[in-house]
């Protein structure tokens, strides 16, 4: 009987809320020209901190495909263990200098690299020391309530416990800080709430894959 109760409690923890009592927040993110923005991270920090403990850190992955990080932006809950499988038929050397997580995975292929635990909230910029144009982002969220916008600029934060939240938006190319996007939003189980953000985005300068600087034949 105790095992059954523990299993049921675990299921609730993983799901984040009891069905029927959960709320939803629908988000639309556009840039200052009205274009829909993909890969924007939306996080909701509950006013009541106990709500922030309703999930356990999952195991996640950022792949490497065609010499690019996939996905380009990944959101994980703080404490998550992230694997970096390499689906290319070559070796990569993944690293980050970001204060939120400094690490280096020496040259590896396949699934040889050990997972990395992201134990501090913040933005982690990923790179590959062999292929300089490879760049990716891991947003380590302080809250388990987060989502990432699709190509249509939309994201849904589901299974939110009803209550007050501070909601913020982050994007790799945003001109101003994430804090400038903070809003107080109240959600309840009666129906989904919605909100729209307009971000000022700067050009995303990246090391080019093909460049006049690359010779002989390789950067």
């Amino acid at each position, binding site marked *: 009987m105790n095992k059954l109760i523990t299993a049921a409690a675990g299921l609730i923890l993983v799901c984040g809320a009891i069905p029927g009592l959960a709320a939803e927040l629908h988000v639309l993110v556009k840039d200052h020209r009205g274009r829909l923005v993909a890969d924007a991270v939306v996080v909701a920090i509950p006013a009541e901190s106990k709500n922030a403990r309703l999930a356990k850190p999952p195991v996640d992955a950022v792949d490497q495909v065609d010499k690019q990080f996939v996905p380009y932006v990944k959101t994980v809950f703080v404490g998550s263990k992230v694997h970096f499988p390499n689906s290319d038929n070559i070796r990569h*050397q993944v690293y980050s200098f970001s204060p939120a997580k400094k690490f280096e995975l*020496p*040259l590896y292929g396949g699934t040889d690299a050990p997972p990395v635990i992201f134990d501090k909230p913040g933005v982690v910029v990923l790179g590959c020391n062999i292929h*300089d144009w490879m760049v990716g982002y891991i947003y380590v969220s302080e809250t388990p309530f987060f989502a990432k916008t699709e190509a249509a600029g939309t994201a849904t934060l589901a299974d939110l416990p009803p209550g007050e939240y501070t909601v913020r938006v982050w994007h790799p190319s945003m001109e101003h800080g994430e804090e400038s996007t903070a809003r107080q939003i109240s959600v309840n189980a009666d129906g989904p709430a919605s909100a729209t953000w307009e971000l000022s985005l700067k050009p995303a300068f990246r090391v080019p894959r*093909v*460049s*006049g600087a690359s010779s*002989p*034949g390789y950067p």
Partner: protein
Amino acid sequence: MENGHASAPAVASFAAFMLLAAAPYAARSDWAVGTDAGVRHDSNVGNAQLSSDIVADSVVDARLSAYRLFPLGDGLGLTLGGDLAGEAYHRITGLNNASLDAAFALKKKWGLGAYAPWIRVGGTVARSSYRDDYRNAWDYRATLASGRRIDERWNVWAEYTYEDRAANAGPEVVPGLSGDAYSQISHNLGAYVEYSLSDRAFLSLGLSGRHGDVVSTSAPNAMIYYASRALAEDPAFGPEAYAYKLPGTTWGARLGVSYSTTEHSLLGAAFERFDTHADGGNDYTKTIVEITWDYRF
């Protein structure tokens, strides 16, 4: 060395040694295959001084490159590969040529990431075959380059190349004066900067200096004759044209813009200007305007 030039067997032996040394790393190596094509207009193909000798022409060129990277660890990587290239001239069709080269480069990065400074040493052996085969040559190049990406917008690098072009010596046109006009040895230095105008557009500026042999093609001319080290007929430019080999220094500047049409391709346009000061007051200039397209698989 043979007649001042590195011998082909020696170069082949060195290339074989490099391949053997890299063999243990081959299982996880990285192929980079690319192609590029372009069209350019050269205002002075024959490097002539007098307006009556200057010939402008347009050239279409294409190249296929295949390189293999062998990461050796600790920021060290070996690149082995080669290029197959061709050029077709609109007017001076005797200069149409195809070339095949083999190259290696050893690159060291000090530190992790795109912004780490790097140094590269490399060598290339190329064989070029012309429609008018008196220009056929072996070309040996040794390069030392170093650079650093300053930030996400600025990239700077510099390069020194020693080039030894070994062509077949032609018959002496004038007794006592070498007919080996197409063999050249030169020292080349270049400094380059690339700036990202946007996430897809790039501006580049290059400054170069070259000291060594230059070949200037003109009608018979006393001033250039007395300064020349070698002289040969150059029928690609006409029955009365002669190629004179002189020591000289060339200064060049290149301004280019490029645009990433896709993540794998780059469309570019460039303007180049070269001023050469050769012995005996034989100075000439040339301007090159080109449009290029690069694709990296």
